[in-house]
């Protein structure tokens, strides 16, 4: 897991990756738009051309930072305020799980595209105890929060694509993709 190792060595805020290294030639037409109304943006907003951010989640502050950066990327991809809120909610739920079960981990958010569309991918990984029973963790009512749709099952329904890899004492990696509608 190269991502995870990088996160462990990187203790000073988000690491960024610029467009040219990730999304083909810079001349390729971009569909994402300039920052929407969240101007008044906090200090240190993402440099133009950023396509990927890695965020260490080991505190409330880290979680908020992960939401902030993921939202910024979503805004760049052209997500509406509604879908930005969904991206932020996904990050919140995944980040909460990291803090609750593994105490620390990483959230990597990146712009992705395939032949037809662009979107956001969010990968939350940790080296915590892992999930013993994955199907159960994805069943409503079995998570620690006894509400249908909250937690991992909720994240799965908010997302367009959802993958979960976990093993006992092998940590957990959740991959979520949300496409621009």
């Amino acid at each position: 897991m190269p991502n995870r190792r990088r996160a462990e060595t990187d203790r000073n805020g988000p690491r960024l990756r610029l467009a040219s290294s990730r999304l083909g030639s810079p001349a390729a037409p971009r569909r994402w738009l300039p920052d929407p109304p969240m101007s008044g943006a906090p200090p240190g907003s993402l440099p133009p051309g950023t396509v990927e951010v890695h965020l260490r989640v080991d505190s409330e502050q880290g979680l908020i930072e992960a939401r902030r950066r993921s939202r910024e990327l979503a805004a760049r991809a052209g997500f509406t305020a509604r879908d930005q809120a969904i991206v932020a909610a996904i990050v919140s739920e995944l980040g909460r799980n990291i803090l609750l079960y593994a105490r620390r981990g990483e959230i990597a958010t990146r712009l992705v595209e395939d032949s037809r569309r662009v979107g956001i991918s969010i990968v939350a990984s940790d080296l915590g105890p892992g999930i013993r029973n994955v199907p159960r963790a994805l069943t409503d009512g079995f998570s620690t929060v006894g509400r249908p749709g909250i937690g991992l099952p909720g994240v799965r329904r908010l997302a367009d694509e959802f993958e979960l890899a976990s093993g006992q004492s092998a940590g957990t990696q959740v991959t979520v993709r949300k496409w621009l509608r």
Partner: protein
Amino acid sequence: MAKVTRRSAGEAASLLGRYEELLRAFLNDGDETALQGAHDLGRELLDRDHGLLDVIAVHQKLVATLSAEEAAGLAPNRLDWADRFLLEVLTPFEMTHRGFRAANASLQQSEERYRELFENAHDIVFTTDLEGRITSINRAGERLSGYSRSEVQTLSISALVPTEDGLVEAALAGERRREAELIARNGRHYLLEISTRPILEGGRCVGMQGIARDITDRRHAETVLRHLNSHLEDKAKRIAHALHDEAGQLLATVYLRVAEIAGELPPLGRRRMEELRTLLDQVDDQLRRLAYELRPTILDDLGLLPACQFLAEGVSRRSRVRIVVKGSTGGRLPADIETALYRVAQEALANVSKHGRARTAVVEFERSSNRLRGTIRDDGIGFDVDGILSRVGPQGLGLRGMRERIVGLGGQFAVRSAAGRGTSVEFDVPLES
């Protein structure tokens, strides 16, 4: 799911206080921290059973208040921010909403699966309320009764099985199984085997559910089999009689003639006639045995227990298995029962001597007021009962024959055996008291 709402006025006020605090903070600095707070608050409001409309109403009231505080009202971009804040509070609601939708869909799916199972069951499946009114019935029930679902639902179960009083009461009292006659719309009678259970809702009994199988054909086949059996026994009896009495009479005449002729012959011829007599003795022996095996007269004359004792002596002599007959049948029994049980003992002892490699065997009868139990057990090598019975073919025919005879008497039959642990054939038949 009725969740007890633990919402007090103070708590509601504090949640609203936090809403206002967070919204003001966000409108002031536009920072993500307040939005994370909004998400958490949304989860908490949801957890405390606050409704979506309540949340929106609170939001609108707050926005109005905030607008009034500023001379020129909230700037357009602040209104936009307030909307964003509301979205954050509402996403947890959206998540549970989708959760309920998915849960509903899967509930519907499983409901459909069970409905298919119910509808396509070969047996009749039905439910009634406490008064015995039919509340649901499947296609098999419609087919057999000839009544459509809507017609059946105006009927009581006692209209369909009129001879059975108190079917529902008995089921509710814990009866699990009974036979009952269904009278279909066209007047035809069907024999049903009904298994029932009470329907419980929250620990309270609200009705009865049942599965009914049409056993008319099975019962018919059983009756035919019984007739066939008694017919065969009759035939055997007559053949045995012919062998024993008529052929025996002829043989006796032959003996007399041989003796007469022997007297007139010279010594050499007399010796040859003696040889002939020995051969005739063997024929006589064979005839008696054949007649006996076809139908032991002792069974008709003295009854089951002496016949079994006689049978055991014969098998013992031929096979060197020591066989003991114990217990009591409590006197004579109806002829069909004696015959069937004798045939079962005969088959079981034949197995003991042929396959069992046993040293000893015990035939035991135990009579209670209205039942007769019997056991034939040996200390032989045993065998795999299920393996033999699951095979199609002549093997196990003897076992099945025994079972048919006992079941035909309305009794219960079991064979217990395992490799190296001997074999025990057990039966238990009801007697008319």
